């Protein structure tokens, strides 16, 4: 299992049978500093996560086991929200420690974290 930040949603109307209704989300795995680790990927979501959320996910065959129908072509699944990820005195779940985007203000980041979810 790895830490990740949800960075977007993926909508696919035509899917493999068994994947109907499974939300697909675009995630960026994170390291212990809260920085991006490796490539972004698309994961099936077992929880109602959305863009901006800090989550944990499992990769490999176990991803499919987190789906309502366990024999589906899925190799990554979001399993839960991360409320706290403490490394020493630092909490990666704190807004303060979220990696800032270029030209990003604290207000803009706060606005993003409270943005209402669609769907």
């Amino acid at each position: 299992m790895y830490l990740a930040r949800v960075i977007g949603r993926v909508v696919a109307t035509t899917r493999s049978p068994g994947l109907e209704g499974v939300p697909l989300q675009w995630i960026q795995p994170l390291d212990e500093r809260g920085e991006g680790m490796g490539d972004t990927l698309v994961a099936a979501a077992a929880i109602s996560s959305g863009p901006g959320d800090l989550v944990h996910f499992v990769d490999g065959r176990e991803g499919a086991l987190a789906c309502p129908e366990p024999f589906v072509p899925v190799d990554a699944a979001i399993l839960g929200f991360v409320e706290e990820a403490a490394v020493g005195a630092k909490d990666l779940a704190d807004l303060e420690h979220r990696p800032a985007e270029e030209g990003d203000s604290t207000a803009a980041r706060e606005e993003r974290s409270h943005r209402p979810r669609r769907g």
Partner: protein
Amino acid sequence: MFLADVIGTVVSSVQIPLLDGEKLLLLRPVAPDGKAVGKTRIGIDRAQAGVGDRVIVIDEGNSARQILDAPNGAVKTIVVGIVDYVERDGEYIYDHREGTSVSLETPRKKVGA
């Protein structure tokens, strides 16, 4: 199985029911000499480990499901033991019995890596 340093804890209250009540640890895989190797990951604690321990980790689904007694569980990474010492060529290269604790310092990324 591989060795990893426990560098933090992860708290999640909304998650798949199988993980309810399980302690999640942030793990940094290490070589026997303590050098960081591979990607930082999250593991389920089944060894009463804590921050500062060097532990043995299984990152494989069948073993994990067996340990959690969940034949269809979406689990993979489990902490199964706490390392007392690591011996190589007759020398202790890590010895927890002397009260040594793993480093929580994150190795800096190489520039351009």
